[in-house]
């Protein structure tokens, strides 16, 4: 570590078209677009740290019922069967679709859960001023890497489609798992809207 300089960037390059501009100074809630390609280059989210902590905690609590409790149950000839997120993956594995089972568990359980954990740790590190900890930068990088691999919304539409497919053939019942799954999904979407990694990057100090 030599001289540390302020990490507030002076110049910004558009990610989509490589257009250069002065780093825009925004108020919370404002966004800036690239002049050339209209891509949203910066968006300062309102109160990102506190909101992320609240949402991540709520999401982590809801994750347990959302994953393990039955989402819905079906009744046919007085035989009852249920499905939960975890039992769907187990069923895929038992059907010898190992690849699909692994991919689904990654997209719908591992990616969202690690996202919640990482944002919680990062937000606390900023809140408690522990950003010099060696895990800070790797965690932001990890967050960005898994960000696009989380597909809870898609799974939610999948639940809707299967409801419609079965509704004529059998009696369907919805359990508490569905409610917690929907809330879990809302947490993940809200986290996407409140967590601000640009802000976290700007706290990293630079040795010149």
């Amino acid at each position, binding site marked *: 570590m030599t001289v540390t300089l302020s990490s507030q960037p002076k110049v910004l390059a558009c990610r989509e078209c490589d257009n250069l501009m002065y780093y825009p100074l925004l108020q919370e809630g404002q966004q800036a677009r690239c002049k050339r390609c209209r891509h949203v280059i910066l968006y300062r989210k309102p109160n990102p740290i506190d909101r992320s902590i609240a949402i991540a905690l709520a999401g982590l609590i809801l994750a347990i019922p959302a994953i393990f409790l039955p*989402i819905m149950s079906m009744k046919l*000839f007085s035989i009852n069967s249920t499905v939960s997120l975890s039992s*769907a993956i187990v069923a895929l594995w038992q059907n010898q679709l190992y690849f699909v089972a692994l991919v689904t568990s990654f997209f719908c359980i591992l990616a969202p859960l690690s996202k919640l954990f990482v944002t919680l740790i990062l937000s606390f590190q900023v809140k408690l001023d522990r950003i010099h900890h060696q895990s800070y930068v790797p965690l932001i990088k990890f967050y960005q890497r898994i960000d696009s691999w989380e597909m809870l919304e898609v799974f939610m539409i999948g639940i809707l489609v299967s409801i419609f*497919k079965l509704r004529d053939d059998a009696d369907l019942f919805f359990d508490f798992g569905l409610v917690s799954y929907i809330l879990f999904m809302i947490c993940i979407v809200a986290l996407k809207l409140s967590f601000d990694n640009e802000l976290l990057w700007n706290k990293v100090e630079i040795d010149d």
Partner: protein
Amino acid sequence: MINPDAIDFSKNGQQNHLASCDTCHWVSPYIVGQNNRCQRCHDALVQRKPFAFQKTLALTICSVIAFFPANLYPIMTILQFGKGQGDTILSGTLYMFQNGMVPIALIVFIASFIFPLAKILGLLYLLYSIRYSSKLSRRKRTHMYRYIELFGPWSMLDVFVVALLVSLVEIGNVLEVVAGPGATAFGVMVILSIFAASSFDSKLLWDERVDDER
């Protein structure tokens, strides 16, 4: 640190010998032929993703190849008293259409057939437009690329439906849903096309002739 006064803002980052980090978006100086690293996060720095054109083309061709087994093999079989016929994605959608579930059939059809097809064709078109010419403005093509990236995960819809049905519908020997090989092929295709889209570099669209500033 770079000096903003020394930058010609009418030119892009590459022409100013700068590169913005793909990870943290910090702008650092870039010297061609050297192993450049980002000043802030120390990740490897590139001005354009290396071999983006070739990688995207290769992965798009791979997803075209996977597109056929994904749509021709049955993704699941509904067994009634041990008998039943496999359903491919298209025959499953057709069945829902005929049974009056038009809105839900449309969602499935768009998510699992139109999106992957549009994604593959769109990427091929973008690649073509880099090498040759295009009637669409660069701004429109950048928009197009953004949507291609956005739609990617939605194609997993049918795979998740299979996962749910396989687990839920198991009423002894009366009614059972068994997953088919099409589901694996479909998952492979979706993931390949997500990789194809993410290996593309939209900056290439803006690197062509400077005269058509649309």
